[in-house]
């Protein structure tokens, strides 16, 4: 007993500090490193680029194509209205700079310099020039963490745009992903454009994802295609964050079931 007390007299500070360190680390874990990312955002703010620079980079061709696309979209909307579709209210995108990459290489994550103070919430959809980037997985006041669609644990419902064959896409590190088809013999070719499918609950339908790079129809249990993702995540500096809108298809089916 006496030795224990003498040991305690000598080492109480060490024990207390170890306890403090472990519990602080535990808090950091439970809060998803929230305070760390807040400090990180504060420190990196002077080095973040501003959007005007990015605008300079968009070349004239993109501007021209965007104008054409707008025309087509407008036409499309008018036709939909004629058919009696209810126009979806377009929600404003939140522009956010990418301030950090993944803190480990097993996960494909990025950190954005905007958080709940700017209106970002969990599960918001993140897009960039080129298409879908990922989904917001956690938010602090001024930062948010995005799980990229190239993360091996991400699952996105996708569709071959040309033939409307559907499947599930899971990430493969790098700028690649693997699409697994639902059908045994899908109509798919190299170069086909892949978009999010209307059956996806987490992402709005019709967002461009990438292009088919190679097809393996003999793969078991289901045919697979390797997809090159179109958003160049490794060189991006800014992304757009959208609130999640439930797919109109799934909403109407829910309404019908009620």
């Amino acid at each position, binding site marked *: 007993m006496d030795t224990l007390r003498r040991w305690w007299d000598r080492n109480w500070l060490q024990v207390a500090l170890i306890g403090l360190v*472990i519990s602080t680390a535990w808090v950091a*874990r439970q809060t998803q490193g929230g305070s*760390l990312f807040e400090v*990180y955002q504060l420190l990196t703010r002077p080095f973040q680029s501003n959007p005007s620079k990015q605008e300079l980079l968009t070349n004239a061709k993109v501007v021209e194509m965007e104008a054409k696309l707008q025309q087509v979209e407008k036409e499309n909307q008018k036709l939909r209205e004629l058919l009696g579709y209810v126009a979806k209210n377009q929600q404003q995108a939140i522009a956010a700079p990418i301030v950090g990459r*993944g803190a480990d290489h097993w996960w494909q994550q990025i950190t954005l310099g905007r958080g709940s103070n700017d209106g970002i919430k969990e599960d918001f959809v993140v897009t960039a020039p080129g298409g879908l980037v990922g989904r917001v997985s956690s938010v602090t006041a001024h930062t948010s963490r995005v799980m990229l669609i190239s993360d091996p*644990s991400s699952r996105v419902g996708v569709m071959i745009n040309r033939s409307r064959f559907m499947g599930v896409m899971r990430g493969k590190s790098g700028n690649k992903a693997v699409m697994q088809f639902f059908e045994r013999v899908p109509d798919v070719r190299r170069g086909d454009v892949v978009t999010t499918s209307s059956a996806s609950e987490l992402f709005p339908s019709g967002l461009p994802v990438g292009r088919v790079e190679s097809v393996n129809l003999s793969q078991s249990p289901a045919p697979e295609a390797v997809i090159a993702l179109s958003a160049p995540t490794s060189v991006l500096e800014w992304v757009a964050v959208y609130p999640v809108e439930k797919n109109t298809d799934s909403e109407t089916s829910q309404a019908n079931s009620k």
Partner: protein
Amino acid sequence: MIQISRLPYYGRQMLNWGVTIASVIVCALILPSRLPGMELLGIGPNWLLIWVVAWSVKRSVLQGAIAGLALGLIQDGMTSLHPSHTLSLMCVGILTASLKKQRYVQEDFISVALIVFGMTVVAETVLALQFSLVGDRSLAEIWTDHQQIALSSAILSSLWAPILYYPLNLWWEKMNWIENNA
């Protein structure tokens, strides 16, 4: 410049811990950044692992394990809770502390770089094993990823290790010297 040796015992201890904890925070903050020259195939050095090695090289197994646990929890918070980094970093702390470096190698820089290289491979292997057990990724993919991640991370971490090891080691040695001569 204050004379550290003139500070009272608890003041010195607090200062020592303050510097130590500040170095951990700096490591955690560099982790999500990709500074020029710190990147290979989109992979950066694993700063928290370098810190655990620097800490454990001249300390006991228990101290190494505790450091691994604390930094593992922090890295878990910064990435994803499952699988956990606590296991891999605790392995690193325990193994590094039980290496008894002084007995075999004298030169500090080179041996620390070598230890970091080996420990990165160990840590990534422990993570890959956990991924294999969890089972939400295919085995073939995990182990191809493992090769790429372990190799580039090990090369970069070992090259950058002296930058962190040298000042920290200097500080801890100085504090030790003061404690022993006080």
